[in-house]
Structures are given as structure tokens and as C-alpha cells.
């Protein structure tokens, strides 16, 4: 492992990415540092290994398939149209959900167990409790006793 402080610059020097001043400094250093000179040589060999590499190519039918005009549904104009519709549908859904919740809140039976409520909503009569019947009896008794 090259522990020379100049080794950090060797990669950029090899790639020709140093400023003129830094390049000159490294070149001067290389004359006196066998470790850096050897490392630079290995970088050059690495590059030549990569230079001999040829990646595979796409099969012609695959290239043709990719280049086929994108399906009509993703044509940009249609995509925008569909996106707008989706946005409108989502807004309508949210508004409708909110309205339905609000409507349920308004029509929700009051918890008041007054007689008037019992009379108006006989199907909501709570037969498990004596309270409504007792109050009805009281009311009837009151009416009967009225002069």
C-alpha cells in the first residue's frame, strides 16, 4: 500500500484532471518516488484492461421495441388529460365523503330520551330501560289528573 502523501493526486493526474500547477508538482514528485511511480503504472494497466472491454449490445428487436412510439395512453397530452381526470375524481370523492359524514351527523338520533323524541321516533324506543315508560306514565297520569 502506497502511503506517500502525494498518492491522493495520482488518480486525477492519471485522468488528466489536475490543474497545470498540480500536474507539474506531481511530475516532479514522480521522479523521486518509486512507490507513486509504481502505483501510476498500475492505474495505467487497469485502464488498459477496461479499454479492452466491450459491453454487449441490445438485440435489434429490443431496440426497436423501446423505440416504438410510446403507447397512446402515455402520449403526453393524454397523460395530462388522464391525470386531470384523476385529480377531479379524487376531489369529488373527498367532497362526497365529507358531505356524507356531515349528513350522518345531522340525522344522527339525539341522545335525549325525552317523550317527544320517543313519540317522533317510536322505532328508537328503548324497551330495555324503564325510564321512557315511566316518564310516559307520569305524563299520562298528569294529563288524566288535569282538570
Amino acid at each position, binding site marked *: 500500500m502506497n502511503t506517500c502523501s502525494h498518492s491522493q493526486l495520482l488518480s486525477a493526474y492519471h485522468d488528466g484532471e489536475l490543474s497545470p500547477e498540480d500536474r507539474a508538482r506531481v511530475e516532479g514528485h514522480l521522479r523521486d518516488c518509486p512507490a507513486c511511480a509504481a502505483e501510476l503504472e498500475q492505474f495505467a494497466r487497469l485502464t488498459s*484492461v477496461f479499454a*479492452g*472491454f466491450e*459491453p454487449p449490445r441490445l438485440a435489434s428487436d429490443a*431496440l426497436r421495441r*423501446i*423505440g416504438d412510439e410510446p403507447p397512446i395512453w*402515455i402520449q403526453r397530452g393524454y397523460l395530462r388529460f388522464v391525470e386531470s381526470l384523476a385529480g377531479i375524481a379524487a376531489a369529488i370523492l373527498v367532497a362526497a365523503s365529507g358531505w356524507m359524514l356531515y349528513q350522518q351527523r345531522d340525522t344522527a338520533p339525539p341522545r335525549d330520551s325525552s317523550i317527544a323524541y320517543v313519540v317522533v321516533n317510536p322505532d328508537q324506543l328503548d324497551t330495555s330501560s324503564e325510564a321512557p315508560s315511566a316518564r310516559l306514565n307520569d305524563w299520562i297520569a298528569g294529563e288524566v289528573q288535569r282538570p
Partner: protein
Amino acid sequence: MGQLEASDAELVRRIRAGDGTAFRELVDRHGNSLFGLAYTLLGSASDAEDVVQETFLGAFRRLDAFEGRSAVKTWLTRILLNHTSKLRRSKRVRKAESTETPAAANDRSLRTGSPAVAVDSRVDVMAMLDTLSPDHRQVIVLRELEGLSYEEIAEALGVPRGTVESRLHRARQELKQRYAGYLT
């Protein structure tokens, strides 16, 4: 006398105007080089093909966002790099979740179907790249195989130039140590 080839910027302008043949021309022009890049990053021809298709579709959808500040090829490369990173992350998650024995990581058919010299070189380079972390693999591929400058690599990856320089240096140190016998 033949017609002058349209520039990439001109092709993008024509695609925006709805010219489907311009899209095909852009794919024909850059498809193979993008495929090569994706292949060297992912090590799989089928994954690379998927990523290239996603890249061009993504570019088609985001044409309005392309302002022409960078070259079209650089823009496409940046989209491709994003897709390869996403694919690698999803494969890493799937591999971690899977209880089955992992399948072979690379597409062997490409390695065995070519003349001997080319096969050896391809196997060596792909084997080398497989030993690198994703970050190191990216900079080595973009520099050594794509020939991009440090500025171009920095732009494609969205990192500072200094990061490119240090990653490249560390990647080369790694390869040099692992393949010392091969490189002397």
C-alpha cells in the same frame, strides 16, 4: 448529398412537438450506449434492458422538465443512474426478504457466447466490477468505460467534483490491491 444529422436538442424539440420518429431516432442513437452502461452497473442483460426502457419512458414523460442546461446524453445518463440505483435497492430488499437460495447474480449467456478473447476480457472486467461497492462501481464505469470527465460524472451523479475524485481514487486502490497479480 445526405441530410445533416439532427442534434439531440433538435430531436427533443421535435419529440415535444409530437414527432414519434424523433423519439425512435433518439433511442437508436443512445440506446446501445445506455444499455452498455446499465449492463456494467447491474451485471444483468435483462435488468439492463428493463432499465433502458424505463429511462426512455421516463425521459419522454419529463420532456417538459428538460431545460437544455446539460447535454441530452448527460440527462439520459442521470435518469438511467437513478433507475439502476432504484433497481439495486429493490433487489437488495427482495434478497434480504427471500428465504430461498439466491439465483446466479449475473447473466452467464453473454459471457459464454462470444469469441475467446472478448469473453476473457468481459469476464475479468465484470468480475472486477462485481467486487466494488455501488458508489465505486459507478465512478469507475463512468470514467473508465464511458470516458466522462470528472465534471460530467459529478453532474450525472449529483455530487461534488471532489467526491468523484476521492471515490475514483479509492475504487482504483481497491482494484489494485485485489488484482495486484493481474495488473503487474
